[in-house]
């Protein structure tokens, strides 16, 4: 079994608001192995992005905090680190790419300088050396005429090119984990296909792990080894990509998959809908957070929050419909083995 690179356990994050502390994620646990791609899927407001910010400890700058839980990366707990230490990890071992490539680049520096910057900062390279490496990186991410492009500014490049530059910056220091937060959402489908192909190719070449955050089930199906479905701040179902798509078990996952108009079969009929909307953060219903929208809601759902039931050894769901299955046990022993 491959080594667990990232292991998040019972991570609860929150934001201080006028109405008090509001939980954005609620005791989520997830792990990413070496070379694996794990997708966090969910709708807006489900807590996907907050999770990624927490891993990078950027949540501290976004006005939030980690309230409980641990984030083990190579056996060290990132949740307990100070920002000084985090600076050495961020960019070096864990890199992140964001949704909007245009606004994640600095408009007043050439793209070459921006790639070189992270090499100078994290790897103490000299100016010339860093610039040379920047050109190589541009070539790696498939930008034609990299020597010329390196001297251009972001506005001179298209959206897809900018996203390649952002990926080049993220890869500059050979990170072991790449967090990609909706990396293709702002792009057209044909460009999205290019970027997804690029990420897959780079992963195969460099052997990095990817934590991909997306709202698009199609992207998740294509990229993921494992999928975690988030709803209103919690992971409601998690398993291998085949398990999630072939045997979705949580009513939310089932509803989500059925709501998507397909490319085959009947069209024009009425689409399946999940009634209602995601509850606003801080106003979670009692019991199971999905019960007001769930077609199978039972009494127990209204009063008690479901634990994780293990459908197979590789597939867990947090739904009372599966209460005949074994409850997921604490797996703290596993964590200690590589502590």
């Amino acid at each position, binding site marked *: 079994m491959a080594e667990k690179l990232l292991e998040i356990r019972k991570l609860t994050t929150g934001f201080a608001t006028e109405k008090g502390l509001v939980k954005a994620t609620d005791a989520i646990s997830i792990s990413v192995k070496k070379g694996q791609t794990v997708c966090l899927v969910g709708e807006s407001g489900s807590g996907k992005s907050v999770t990624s910010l927490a891993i990078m400890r950027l949540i501290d700058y976004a006005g939030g905090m980690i309230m409980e839980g641990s984030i083990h990366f190579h056996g060290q707990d990132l949740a307990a680190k100070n920002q000084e230490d985090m600076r050495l990890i961020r960019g070096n071992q864990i890199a992140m790419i964001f949704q909007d490539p245009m606004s994640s680049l600095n408009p007043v520096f050439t793209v070459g300088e921006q790639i070189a910057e992270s090499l100078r900062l994290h790897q103490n390279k000299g100016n010339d050396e860093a610039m040379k490496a920047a050109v190589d990186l541009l070539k790696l991410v498939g930008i034609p005429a990299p020597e010329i492009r390196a001297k251009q500014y972001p506005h001179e490049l298209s959206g897809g090119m900018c996203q390649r530059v952002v990926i080049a910056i993220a890869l500059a220091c050979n990170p072991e984990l790449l967090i990609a937060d909706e990396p293709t959402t702002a792009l057209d489908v044909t*460009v999205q*296909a290019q970027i997804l192909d690029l990420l897959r190719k780079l992963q195969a070449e460099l052997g990095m792990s990817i934590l991909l955050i997306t709202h698009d089930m199609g992207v998740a199906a294509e990229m993921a080894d494992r999928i975690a479905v988030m709803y209103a701040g919690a992971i409601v179902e998690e398993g291998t990509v085949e398990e999630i798509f072939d045997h979705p078990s949580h009513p939310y996952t089932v509803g989500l998959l059925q*709501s998507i108009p397909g490319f085959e079969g009947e069209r024009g009929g009425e689409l399946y809908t999940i009634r209602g909307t*995601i509850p606003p953060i801080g106003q979670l219903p009692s019991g199971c957070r999905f019960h007001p929208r769930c077609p199978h809601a039972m009494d127990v759902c209204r009063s008690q929050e479901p634990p994780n039931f293990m459908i197979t050894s590789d597939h867990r769901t947090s739904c009372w419909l599966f209460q005949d299955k074994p409850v997921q046990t604490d797996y703290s022993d596993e964590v200690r083995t590589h502590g």
Partner: protein
Amino acid sequence: MGNEAVVTADSKALSSAEVLVDIKDVKKYFPITKGLLNRTVGQVKAVDGVSLAIRKGETFGLVGESGCGKSTFGRLLLRLQSVTEGEVLFKGKDIHSLGHQEMRRLREEMQIIFQDPFGSLNPRFLVKDIIGEPLRIHRSMSARDIDARVVELMELVGLDASRRNRYPHEFSGGQRQRIGIARAIALNPQFIVADEAVSALDVSVQSQVINLLMKLQKELGLTFLFIAHGLNVVRHISDRVGVMYLGKMVEVAETEALFAAPLHPYTAALLSAIPKPTPRRKQDRIVLEGDVPSPANPPSGCRFHTRCPLAQEKCRMQEPLLEEAAPGRMVACHFPLASV
């Protein structure tokens, strides 16, 4: 495909009664200006000669990547933008040559639903004023009648009418889009342009709004131009689909036929680029090289030749015309796929 079909989709063959909007070679060029005197130094050819007949009661899906001119095209049909050249015949009248009064009367019959449910509603208006605004402008109705109609409309689109005295920020994205839809249908229009009307919504909410649009179409007999980049949504909702690339229509076909066997290489690439929610089918993809060229300086010949995997010498020299390839199918390509 059925060669025995006698009915063709060619606009010439359709009687005027069946066509609601007849678009004849419309062009929209935006000038690029420069310097102190705003000299025109070039033109962005956003829509460059598109002809199309939208039939009464159909949903025509328009797809293409950003910058291909699909939104501009939609706006030209409503005269939200003036054409550079060409005609848009709405029920036989060219709307771009109508006078102000006449145009205003005609606007009752054509409406638009916008993409952004946050940007398209005035935050300082109450919801009842947003939905009632077209009634106040176009109809001489009493405040009481307007209120009654607003209640009726809100119920029709699935909103709680008791919330009409609230502001848009108190509604969710999906609910705001319903407000936009209620406003669009307030005057009983015949033709609605839905410009990326569901693109900004989460899937679970998106399916609700799609169902609503289809229900309204059935009940009110609406004709839709449904502009979107989400091809699965377009497939679900449209009767016919048009594919645009760099200001040109490259393929028009019945939805089933287009998705079953696209004729234009661009359509084929577009269809294959979409990630499908089925794992383990990762190989069958045509990945296009490069980006969409600038519409200010489109390539010679076929505009797609710079990215086309099948491009040949002829494509660089000669521009292909949108011609009928099979009954009901139009394609602009010198070497269409599976044309035999």
